[in-house]
């Protein structure tokens, strides 16, 4: 919602951050209200979170189909554009075309996969890492960021502090 604001608790270790997530839940916040920011990957569920399913494979598959189609059309069109018979063979040299189709299928599958990773990771963010972020996160600290309406910000701050947040970062109004 447009009037939602971010507030983040900065925690020194995993245990206090996990406690922060527990406090938030008992304060009435649900999974969608908060997110965890870390400088390196942790096992899934370490902070009680559940990552929603992604559709990365759809990107890879569609990329493969697109690449295959482009390569087929390109190789077929270029050979029929100047139909020169060589060695009595058919104009469309299928085995040779397959090599190009194979490469283009994989090329587009890779391009689409990278696009998919970026898209599914909700990147690029026009505002950079902000509006609420702390550079200590890449030093090993853990951020617990709550997105909620202004009237619940105090409640979130209390829960984060109660769990042992070293610092609270608020979105400037």
């Amino acid at each position: 919602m447009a009037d939602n604001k971010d507030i983040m608790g900065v925690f020194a270790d995993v245990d206090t951050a996990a406690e922060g997530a527990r406090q938030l839940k008992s304060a009435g916040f649900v999974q969608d209200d908060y997110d965890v920011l870390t400088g390196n990957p942790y096992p899934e569920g370490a902070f009680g979170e559940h990552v929603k399913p992604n559709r990365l494979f759809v990107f890879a598959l569609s990329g493969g189909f697109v690449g295959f189609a482009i390569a087929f059309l390109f190789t077929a069109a270029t050979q029929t554009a100047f139909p020169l018979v060589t060695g009595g063979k058919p104009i469309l040299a299928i085995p040779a075309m397959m090599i190009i189709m194979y490469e283009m299928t994989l090329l587009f599958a890779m391009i689409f996969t990278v696009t998919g990773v970026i898209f599914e990771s909700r990147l690029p963010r026009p505002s950079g890492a902000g509006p609420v972020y702390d550079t200590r996160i890449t030093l090993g600290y853990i951020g617990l960021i709550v997105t909620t309406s202004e009237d619940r910000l105090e409640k979130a701050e209390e829960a984060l502090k109660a769990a042992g947040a070293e610092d609270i970062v608020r979105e400037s109004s």
Partner: protein
Amino acid sequence: MQDRPTLTPTQINEELLWPVFSFRKRHALAFIPPMILISGGVAAVTILIYQGLWVTGLQRPAFWGFFIVNFVFWIGVSHAGTMISAILRLTQAEWKRPITRAAEVMTIFSLVVSLLHPVIHAGRPWRIIYWLLPYDFSRGIWPDVRSPLVWDPIAITTYLTGSILFVFTALIPDFALIRDQSSGLRKKIYGRLALGWRGTPRQWKLQGIFGLLMSALILPVFVSVHSIVSWDFAVSVVPAWHVTVYAPYFVIGAVHSGVSMVLTLMALMRWIFKLENYIWEDHFDAVGRLLIVIATLWLFFFFLDFAYSFYTREEQELAVMERRLFEWPFNAITVIMVFTSYVIPIPLWLSRRVRRNIPLMFWTSILVNIGMWLERYFLIIPAIERKNELTFLWSNYVPSLIESLVVLASFGMVGFLLLLFAKVVPLVPAWEAKEGVIFREDVQFGEVTLPGIIKETEEENVW
């Protein structure tokens, strides 16, 4: 078992990011040898462009010489990145962490350098665009899809694009790390490159899946690239080139030289960037074991190539083999090649003590690469010298100084680009190093403490 240091995230940041934030003497000095080699190469190419191709040793019937040999060699080296990083990622080998990025980046730079060779070899580089790209809209004549010289750029471009995307996407968390640790213009540039990365569980999970998915996609490209490079030769009707074994023979040769080059790179990284806490003797041991298998496979294909020729009992084919084995200088090249690629390093690598001796591993990996470079020369030149047996075309290819300088410069260029890359981002992925620390847990067995790795086993956590 080597003692594994316990590192904190701050320490990992400091030890891996110093080349980005400062320019120490050892890093600066490392630039000197590549720059000397590159200067020689630039001078040679300038003379070549100004004077024409007569300054090379190319003459009838051998019009493929050092440039093409070196092109094939660097394409081969580029296979290291994928071999090491994709296979180790797919098998979730823990020891991959410190070497994946360097191997992947070496793939990119080897490909870039190898691509320069056909351009230089063309003699008039500014015209190459007309030969490569489909341009002739008015007459409707397009490059022939039946030609391996069309397959080749397509395969290499696919591999290069895939490798760049692979490296870039895996770099995003490290761009964010540098963004957070810097200020001013550097912060702005890395901020843009990091695309606003924050490190949410979803982003990390996608990074993990991406590594596996991209590995699975790039592996078929990896096999196809050197197969297609081998078809540049095998699809022709030149005796001794026209063999079906060339594709797997080239691929395994590429892996042999590539993984050996990774070994060279690991030793250099350890020395130049002081990465003792990340690249351990255990890593050299593991790569050494891998190389024993690869080298033995390569030797099998080496003999298979001869076997195929002997079974054909074709006079032309046997003449090339005779030339390779018994005529000067190819007899010497064959002996040096077999000794440097197999006979010397393999018995040494069978010893655990040698595999854990970094200077010895470094020098044996250099030996393998000398051997594998000679292997390309051995495969390409004797065959093409017999391409046309008319008496007045019967001459030997003798490489000129210009060509040798370009070959040396190619090594300098890959080294230079790697050193430059290390100035921009850490060669060891910082986030993967930290992940390794988090998943590590020492396990006590009676009086012995062993380093263990915690693994997520649920399928849904991986996919």
